[in-house]
């Protein structure tokens, strides 16, 4: 099989890349190793409404709930509230990703991309050392797909980059180990996302509840890998359930790893671009990665169109992708990474002081950045290390 671009992985990053490239007339093949796109889910499904709607038309089929805002809880129980209109980049919609991911893949198919499910990329094909496609296993049979350009959208497990010589293996401190229950409970607040902080609750991370409507919520935990241990996330999540939703019924279990490494050195190699979690484009402090994955997919698709038409698919020829994703989200990711490196060191007392200091401030219209700036103003000593970030 021959094509212009082969996309490995049909998550949000891959589908947006495939759709963008196919819509511009390229011959695109997208591989997905699973037999069902989007399933099982490895996500809490929260996205900012505004940015999402800039990229795709919202569809009630894949919106589980719309939230008003977010509440943050300190280890001592102190609570602050941020409202959606500004906290919007972290919350807004809670998606139904099984349907969402599938819908994005179908959008790509509709504009001409060929989608192959149950098709797993095994390695890169090379001609004179230069990548020229992938060899794959398609429903148990070998399949070679020749293409001058490979887009690695293969998520947290990514191997495309490693095959191309980019070391994307995550260090334990740069991955958040997650477990999540889909919980049914009459006490669930259908209108707010909630975040619970504390070193006993979730070392180096947080517990979240993201409502999905009708007293259902994704209740999950992310623990920094270096502070985690075998089975720790699911054990801590069960403890949280006991104290917060003692009567909650668990109707689904999710596990997952969320990259929190900050900006990777290179997301391109000769004939290869990495997008989404494969390129660690998640926000290290919130763990959110859907929107960045989609943005990067679109940029990669656009660059693919140019690069294929002018025939320069070397790393240098793909520099536009590298430049554009860094301009679009790199700075933000780098800054969030520094926040993460700092916040994982805080004690529960520090966290109590920080969140307590906001109690008498009106942060209801603030986003995460605004809140951090306010925190700095109120706690200059504690946050001294971060002063260069807060300008």
């Amino acid at each position, binding site marked *: 099989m021959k094509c212009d671009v082969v996309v490995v992985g049909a998550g949000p990053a891959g589908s947006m890349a495939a759709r963008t490239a196919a819509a511009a007339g390229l011959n695109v093949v997208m591989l997905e190793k699973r037999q069902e796109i989007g399933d099982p889910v490895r996500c809490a499904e929260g996205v900012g409404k505004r940015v999402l709607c800039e990229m795709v038309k919202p569809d009630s089929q894949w919106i589980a709930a719309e939230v008003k805002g977010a509440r943050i809880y300190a280890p001592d129980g102190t609570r602050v509230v941020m409202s959606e209109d500004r906290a919007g980049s972290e919350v807004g919609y809670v998606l139904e990703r099984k349907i969402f991911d599938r819908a994005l893949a179908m959008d790509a198919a509709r504009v001409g991309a060929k989608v192959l499910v149950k098709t797993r990329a095994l390695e890169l094909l090379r001609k004179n050392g230069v990548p020229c496609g992938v060899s794959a296993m398609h429903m148990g049979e070998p399949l070679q797909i020749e293409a001058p350009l490979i887009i690695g959208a293969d998520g947290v497990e990514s191997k495309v980059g490693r095959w191309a010589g980019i070391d994307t*293996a995550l260090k334990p401190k740069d*991955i958040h180990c997650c477990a999540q229950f889909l919980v049914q409970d009459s006490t669930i607040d259908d209108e707010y996302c909630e975040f619970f902080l504390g070193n006993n609750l979730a070392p180096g991370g947080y517990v979240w509840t993201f409502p999905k409507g009708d007293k259902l919520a994704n209740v999950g935990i992310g623990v920094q890998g270096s502070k985690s*241990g075998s089975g720790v996330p699911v054990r801590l999540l069960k403890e949280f359930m006991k104290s917060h939703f003692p009567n909650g019924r668990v109707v689904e279990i999710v596990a997952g790893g969320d990259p929190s490494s900050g900006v990777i050195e290179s997301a391109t190699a000769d004939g290869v671009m990495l997008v989404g979690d494969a390129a660690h484009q998640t926000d290290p402090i919130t763990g959110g990665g859907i929107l960045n994955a989609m943005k990067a997919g679109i940029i990669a698709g656009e660059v693919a169109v140019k690069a294929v038409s002018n025939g320069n698919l070397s790393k240098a020829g793909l520099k536009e992708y590298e430049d554009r994703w860094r301009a679009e989200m790199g700075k933000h990711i780098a800054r969030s990474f520094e926040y993460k490196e700092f916040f994982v060191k805080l004690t529960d007392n520090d966290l109590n002081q920080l969140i307590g200091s906001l109690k008498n401030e009106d942060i209801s219209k603030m986003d995460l950045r605004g809140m951090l700036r306010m925190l700095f103003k109120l706690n200059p000593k504690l946050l001294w290390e971060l002063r260069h970030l807060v300008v």
Partner: protein
Amino acid sequence: MWRCDPLLTVNRYKCCYCGACVGVCPTMSLELVETWLEVSPECKECGICTKICPVGALEVKA
């Protein structure tokens, strides 16, 4: 050292096939195929993946 089985064991009754372990393995020894986690002979038994697994499905036998 000669051995017939990899010392890394996967408890397939626990594994939630999430792929977190695949992402941290420094030697690319793990591969997730749907619900089946494959361990290749390149595994160095470093134990990194066992500490990362959210549900405790991996173990390096001493």
